[in-house]
Every structure is written in C-alpha cells, then in structure tokens.
C-alpha cells in the first residue's frame, strides 16, 4: 500500500523523468543545428551533390577534347605573353597603392599593345563556344542550380540590382571600381582550367576572360550563361 509520502513524491518523480525528456526534445533542433532551417539544408544537400559531380567531371569525350585543344593553345599563348611582360616590367613584388595602380596599368598597356589586333572570339573560337555554353548551362539550369545562379548574380554588373551595368571590350581594362561577379565552384570545376594569370568572370550573361593582374579583358563569350533570373 502506497503511503502519503510516496504519493507526494510522485509529481516530483514525474518532473525528474519528464524534465530531461522535454529538455532533450526542445534541445534537438538546436543540437541538430541545420535542422533549424530544413529547407536550406535540403537545398545545401542538393548543391553539395551537384558540386561533387562537377568536381569529378572530366572532359573525356573526343569532341570536347578536340574543341578545347585550340582554346587551351590560345590560353597558353596568352599566359606566355603575360609572363614575359610581367618579367620585363618587374612587377612581382607587393607594392603600396600608388605602385599597384601604376603597375596594373603599365602591364595592361604593354599586353594590349602586343595584342593590338585582338578581336572577340580569338580565344573563345566559334568551334568551342557551344561547348562552353553547354558546360555553363549544365551548372545553371535545374532545381539544384539556384545557389550557383545567385552567386553569379551577386556583384555582377547589370545583374545585381545595386551594381550599375558596365560595358567591356576585348583588350580594354575592366572598368575601374566595378565589382566582380562571384564565379561559383561548380562552374569553375566544370570549365577548362586556366593558368593563374587568367580568370573567368561574368558580366551580365557574358563570360569574360580577364587578366588577373593587368585586369585586362582578354576575350568575351557573349550570352554564355542562360537566364540568370532567380525565382
């Protein structure tokens, strides 16, 4: 038979039992962390898969290799020119702002003078353009590509609502003071690798090759990206 004291202890006992369970229940979303934002976590998982796939992508098809051969030769030629001009001007050491700006311009002028006849499509030759557009579209179309599109839009002149449109020209400097689009890893992993002297960037939907030191626009692939609208 239960005595009075043990009946009185029952609520206390219940508190001891229920308390930790309730605390655990309440703590789970916090401990789980990403569980606080299940939608974002689902999207993050999709993006991670997509990026992993992009990382493992190799340009194995014969038609891809053939199309890229000419591109890579042009890129290698440009990298040689960049290195030669850089070495000639001796611009490798870190500098203060005055020297940085002067060096950038000096290098840009030297390279531009050597490529005075450069025209749109010299590096993004017509035969490689469909491949680039397809590779980029693979990363920017579909349910799992929202994050990549969003990354490209940010800082992209003319796409980002707070960045004014700019006009770029082959063999002219990237406009001073204009932001640069972020190029998402999945796109970078998919596109043919570049030497350190060159970077891919987007201006609107156009893909540009820009000299990473001279900040010179080396070539432009118009309408490289599909519609970047974020819905």
């Amino acid at each position, binding site marked *: 038979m239960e005595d009075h004291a043990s009946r009185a202890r029952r609520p206390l006992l219940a508190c001891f039992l229920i308390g930790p369970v309730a605390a655990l229940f309440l703590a789970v979303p916090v401990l789980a962390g990403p569980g606080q934002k299940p939608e974002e976590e689902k999207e993050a998982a999709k993006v991670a898969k997509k990026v992993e796939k992009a*990382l493992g992508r190799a340009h194995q098809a014969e038609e891809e290799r053939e199309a890229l051969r000419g591109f890579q030769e042009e890129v290698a030629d440009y990298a040689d020119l960049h290195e030669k001009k850089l070495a000639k001007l001796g611009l490798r050491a870190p500098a203060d702002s*005055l020297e940085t700006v002067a060096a950038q311009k000096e290098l840009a002028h030297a390279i531009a003078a050597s490529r005075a006849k450069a025209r749109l499509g010299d590096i993004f030759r017509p035969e490689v353009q469909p491949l680039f557009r397809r590779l980029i579209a693979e990363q920017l179309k579909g349910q799992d590509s929202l994050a990549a599109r969003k990354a490209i839009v940010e800082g992209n002149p003319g796409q980002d609502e707070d960045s004014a449109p700019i006009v770029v020209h082959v063999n002219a400097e990237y406009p001073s003071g204009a932001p640069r689009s972020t190029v998402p890893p999945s796109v970078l992993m998919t596109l043919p690798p570049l030497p350190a002297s060159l970077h891919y960037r987007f201006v609107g939907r156009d893909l540009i090759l820009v000299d990473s030191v001279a*900040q010179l626009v080396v070539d432009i692939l118009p309408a490289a990206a599909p519609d970047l609208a974020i819905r």
Partner: protein
Amino acid sequence: MNHAMISRLLVVLWLALCPGPTAPLGGATTARAPVTRTLTLPGKDGSVRFAVIGDTGRGSREQYEVAKQMAAFHDAFPFDFVIMLGDNIYGSDTPAEMANKFATPYKPLLDAGVVFRASLGNHDNPNQRFYQPFNMGGERYYTFRASKGGIAKVTEGGVRFFALDTDYLDKPQLEWLEKELSSSSSDWKVAFFHHPLYSSGKTHGSALESRAVLEPLFVKYGVSAVFSGHDHIYERIKPQKGGIGYPAPVVRCAKGTSAPRT
C-alpha cells in the same frame, strides 16, 4: 554606436592560447585521445588578440566613427592585428581613395603598430592583394600564424589563420587549402573570407556552393572558427559539425532586417 556601425565592426574578439598540446576547439573528426586544455584568459600575457572588420571600405562617416571606436578600444584592449573580411575598398581604388577608405581612418591603429590582414570581397579589385598595408603578400589566399606575444613572435602551436578568396574558389585554391590545413600543427585554425557559409541575412544568405567545397575541409581538419562578411548583420555562430557553426542570430541592424545589398 548605431546598429549600422555595429554591423560593420563585426566583432572584436580574443582568443585564448593553449600552452600545451591540445585538440582543435571544435574537435576534429578523427579520433584522438582526450587532452587537457589550459586556457590563457584574454588580456593576459600570452593571449592572441585581434579585431575583425568587414564590408567597411566606403570612406563614410560611419566607417570613420567605427575606426575611432576601434582605436579607443585598442587603448584598453591592445589587439595586435585586424583581419578584414572583404569589400575593403568599395568602388574606386585610386591612391587618394585608398587613403580615404583605409589609410586615413585606421591611421591611429597603423601608427600603433597594428597589422591589417585582408581577404578579398566581390567589391574589391583583386589587385589590392598587392597593396602593402593589407599584408596579403600579393596572394588571393594565404596563411599566417599568430602566437604568444603577438604576431611577430611565432612559436610552435598557436593560432593559424587562413585567408580565402571566396569570389573565385578554383581548384588550385582548394588544393592549397587542403595541403595547408592538413600540414598545420597549430592549436587553433581560423579561416576568414567574404561569403558566409551560413547566414540568416535576407540580402544574401548562406553561400551554399562555397559551403559545399569548404565545410568538408574545415570539418575534416578541425578548423576552430570561421569569420565572414557580405551580409551586413552581426550574427554569432554556435559551433557544431566539428567546430563549424550554425547561425544563432544575436544582434541585427535595423530591427532585424539586413543592411542594403552590397
């Protein structure tokens, strides 16, 4: 100091160094024997002290006021260096603008010997990596160590910082990061860069593509803390996933809304 200013001066923080062998703060994923940690409290000899700023370089009144607050805070809490989270110089970066947006507002700190270490944001000309006072050594991504007695007295262990360029996370950068992280024997590993892997910001939010390639490395190699900018809010992160945090909003500017897009 108003909310906008708070959002720009993201956090001033201390790190307590561990004199003996330790595990990373968040714990690496690899199994290790439990270790005892002896902490040196902030403000004491041997602690590494630094400030963090991001998205600052407009040459605005607010930037100058924050810089003034930083200098005043430095008098009471002498941090040795400042890490910069990108968008360090918005718009034009002529010599006059570099002075207006960096050298002039931070002159008292620079004069006091405080070292600035920058990472690049989407508004920065990548050539700012050559700008001597940013101490980037001409690299888009780089690493440096800070230890007992300040940044100049590097010894074993200590804290290693990794500055990344999340505007352009290409394969060479990721391979470099993995190599550096895997070979680092520092007690603390701290990464800093522009785009937040986790953010509750309404303007930008989490950079999921960057998270997909960076977070696995941070978890694998026991990165202790990550600092990022881009969203103009102040948000603290609860450590998890082996030390990588998830957002726990604490203070936001403008009553819970993000600052204007950058």
